[in-house]
């Protein structure tokens, strides 16, 4: 009976989810100014320190095991918060890229497509990285590193800056 109850509860939750998804709409920001205000600052250097294996090894060797586990959990929680910020900013850039994809200007549309692709990859990547850190939070001994996030994030923001620059140049020319 327990498994039947679980299946019924899951199916009812799914039913509610489908109804809500059918009537609800995703939040979108209409102006660029609104988007800019939503950008969350992310300290990449601090994130790098929190996820650096050598830092972790140093703490492991310098602290008693119980204290190390407590501190490591705090560090992982902070790293997950930073990744949340990265993911949030990628979602904003995704919206910017999707808007630029529709531009009549070929160059703007092309860079918009690139920003969209990079932002999507970043969203996927940050989701996987958060998953890895969550596993490490539960199992502190697990060897999982969210590598490559910083490089990809910088690549994405560079592409978005390039898009902005092209658009500014065009605006000024007009």
């Amino acid at each position, binding site marked *: 009976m327990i498994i*039947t109850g679980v299946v019924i509860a899951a199916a009812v939750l799914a039913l509610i989810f489908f109804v809500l*998804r059918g009537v609800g709409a995703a939040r979108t920001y209409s102006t660029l*100014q609104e988007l800019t205000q939503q*950008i969350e600052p992310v300290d990449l250097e601090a994130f790098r320190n929190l996820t650096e294996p050598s830092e972790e090894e140093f703490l492991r060797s310098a602290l008693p095991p119980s204290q190390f586990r407590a501190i490591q959990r705090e560090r992982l929680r902070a790293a997950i918060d930073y990744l949340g910020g990265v993911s949030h900013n990628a979602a904003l850039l995704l919206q910017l890229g999707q808007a630029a994809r529709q531009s009549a200007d070929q160059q703007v549309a092309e860079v918009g497509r690139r920003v969209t*692709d990079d932002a999507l990859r970043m969203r996927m990547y940050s989701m996987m990285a958060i998953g890895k850190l969550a596993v490490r939070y539960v199992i502190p001994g697990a060897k999982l590193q969210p590598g490559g996030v910083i490089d990809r994030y910088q690549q994405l923001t560079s592409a978005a*800056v390039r898009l*902005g620059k092209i658009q500014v140049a065009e605006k000024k020319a007009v």
Partner: protein
Amino acid sequence: MDAMDSVTRDQYYTAWLIERYVSAGLRFAVIHEIFHHVFRTYPALQKLGGRIFRWSTALLMVVAVVLVAYTTGTNLDRLSVVPIVIDRAVDIMQVGLLVVLLLLVKYLRLTWSTYALPVAVGLGLYSSTMLVMAAFHAHYGRYFEPVLFGHIEHISYSCSNLVWFTALLIPERAVQPVEPPSAEELESWNAALQRLLEQ
């Protein structure tokens, strides 16, 4: 066939089973098509969409088999077991796939075409209702509350049809021309991104 004297009980049962399998197969095909449709405009996700569909299907199949294997029914006869087991496994997989798809689209903030979302939502409504009923059938037997469950199935199917036909009546969304931002807005956007880059 139900009303034809020339059709035997076994023939009716076989035809009914075939109808269930074909219907389940078609629903999987529709879900696969929605996955393909949603991801096709995003080159970065084209391969990923197919991969997520395959892995989710495999994972949900394992979940369905485990759930079915560990469920103890009280009123199951030999004739009821096969369709009940298959119905429930298929419904678990279909509901799971649609939930995965909707969550992924929501998380990645992808845009739906006018028809893809209603098709997914309508199918999800129907599949999750069928899953609830399949779970009750698995526990209490195929003939548990047949009239009530028959009505529920019809209402659920009608609601799904309503969602699909309403979507068909809504004109396809035209591509909205994006209001070009002002140079000042773009400058401040660039400055914000530059600050991010320099951190």
